[in-house]
């Protein structure tokens, strides 16, 4: 992992100016994605996962969104690029697949027409050549008899098929980074597994780095190398997947893992994290999680915790792991 990361996000902050005040949907998010790495972004609804991914592609309408920080693709800053340069990047170097495969294809065009358009958007090839590439890619993502599918409209395909077609569309131009925004939530479980396997296989074969966004910890566990847990717009913990599941550091991560129902355990109530996510317009003064945290100290309520880089490469944003905690450890409430 000594080579330069494909995608580098540094101190990304996205605020929305609304009539209720300004809302920081994402604040100070940093991560790096190495070539071929699979990164998972987990968190509750509204924790800033989708906003993070959309700001990487600059798909957020601006205004109201204000994006600050830095997003570097292969060392090139994306946030200062012109819209035209961005168009060249999207689909070509960074691609995205969405959660609703049923409505993510234009109902008016055939599969071949739509996918061919993406090829011709980024490569100077003839229509026939584009068709050939589309067929090739449809075959790669496991769509049987792609020649027939080419002439079919989206409504003639099942949900799983459409998600495969979407993945094919995203991968047509061999992007360096693929952002998958909850690619399996709208699909049933067997299809989910197939799609995830497909993504894993494509990652191995083509070396595409993947950012997988989900709130399903089960999906994360089987899929990615590194996990970043988001809460209220912050990355609260980032660790290799095994470590995160076996030895979570942040109280929020612990809470999340505890609240997964376990097969075979019938006694007792399902564990939950007490309280509710604070309003994004009115975050607590200190740590955003402090009002729900079982291990909250006095300092947590006063000052925002620093993002700590631990020796084993893990990242955690919690006062518990700072030297101050030891000194003021007695302030545990």
């Amino acid at each position, binding site marked *: 992992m000594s080579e330069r990361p494909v995608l580098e996000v540094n101190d990304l902050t996205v605020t929305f100016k609304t009539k209720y005040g300004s809302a920081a949907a994402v604040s100070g998010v940093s991560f790096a994605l190495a070539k071929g790495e699979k990164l998972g972004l987990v968190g509750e609804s509204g924790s800033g996962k989708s906003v993070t991914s959309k700001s990487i*592609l600059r*798909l957020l309408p601006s205004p109201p969104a204000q994006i600050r920080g830095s997003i570097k693709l292969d060392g090139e800053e994306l946030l200062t690029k012109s*819209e*035209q340069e961005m*168009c*060249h*990047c*999207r*689909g*070509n170097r960074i*691609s*995205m*697949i*969405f959660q*609703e495969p049923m*409505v*993510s*294809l*234009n*109902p*008016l065009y055939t599969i071949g027409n*739509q996918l061919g*358009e*993406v090829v011709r*958007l*980024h490569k100077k090839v003839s229509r026939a050549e584009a068709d050939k590439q589309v067929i090739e890619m449809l075959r790669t993502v496991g769509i049987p008899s792609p020649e027939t599918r080419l002439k079919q*409209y989206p*409504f003639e395909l099942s949900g799983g098929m459409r998600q495969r077609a*979407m993945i094919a*569309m*995203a991968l047509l131009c061999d992007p360096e980074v693929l952002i998958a925004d909850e690619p399996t939530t709208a699909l049933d479980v067997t299809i989910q597994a197939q799609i995830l396997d497909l993504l894993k296989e494509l990652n191995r074969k083509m070396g595409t780095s993947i950012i997988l966004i989900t709130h399903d910890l089960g999906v994360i566990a089987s899929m990615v190398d590194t996990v970043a847990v988001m809460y209220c717009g912050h990355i609260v913990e980032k660790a290799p997947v095994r470590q995160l599941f076996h030895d979570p550091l942040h109280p929020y991560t612990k809470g999340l893992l505890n609240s997964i129902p376990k097969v075979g355990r019938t006694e007792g109530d399902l564990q939950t994290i007490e309280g509710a996510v604070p309003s994004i317009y009115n975050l607590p003064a200190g740590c955003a999680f402090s009002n729900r945290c079982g291990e909250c100290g006095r300092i947590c309520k006063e000052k925002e915790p620093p993002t700590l880089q631990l020796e084993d490469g893990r990242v955690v944003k919690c006062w518990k792991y700072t030297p101050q905690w030891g000194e003021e450890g007695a302030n545990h409430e």
Partner: protein
Amino acid sequence: MKALWRSLKQSKTGMIGLAIVLVVVVCAIFAYQLAPCDPLQQDLMNKLHDPAWTATGTQEHLLGTDQLGRDVLSRLLVGARITLLVALAGTVVGGVVGVVLGCLAGYYGGWVDAVLMRLVDIQLCFPFTLLALFIAAVLGGSLGNVILIAGITSWVRYARLVRGEILSIKESEYIEAIRAEGGSDARIIFRHILPNVISSVIVIATLEMAKIVLMEASLSFLGYGVPVTIPTWGRMLSEARANMVSNPWQCILPGLCITLTVLGVNLLGDWLRDYLDPKLDV
């Protein structure tokens, strides 16, 4: 092309519409070859004849003569040219302007939307006739100006409709998906959004076309239409108004022509909308 024909054959109403429109178009194109007399030739001795099939009709003038003794059949045939030209060109002008401005307003929103939609509101405040008269009085009456007026008075309905539809379509996932694949604004608007609204535009266009035929009639009636030397269905209708009770055929015939043409266009438009929409193809 084959699929188009097959779909048309399945739709009875579409076929009827096509037949009517074809007849009118052929009449318009070959008007001077088909017309038995010169449509401007007056013959005051033989004025206000009824059609040949009535008791007072003559074989000489198949559909009778008007108050100046001009042959009605010839005037209807030649009038089809102008009526059709004004209706088609007016619809195209109004449609193109309305759709493009509606697209801009709907897609970009913000101040573009605000300015355009207030313009639409202002125009809708004016009674249609007053607006048409105003423009006609300023520009003067000529064929080109009548077409222009038709366009100016009809664009607002397209613009409102298209804007409304785009507001919902531009938020849909497939538009976001194509943007994520690198589609530019122009490509998204014209290739991905426009085809989705075109079916509604066709419906409005067929209705508007009928309206333009009537608008041309009212302008001619008020004396601001195309020059008097050009016969149009609207002018025939308004000229026959004075003798409506004594010679009803003078009104019925051009009225029938307008009604049938409008009906034909509507039927054809209905089928076209179904044909263009693959969502209805299940």
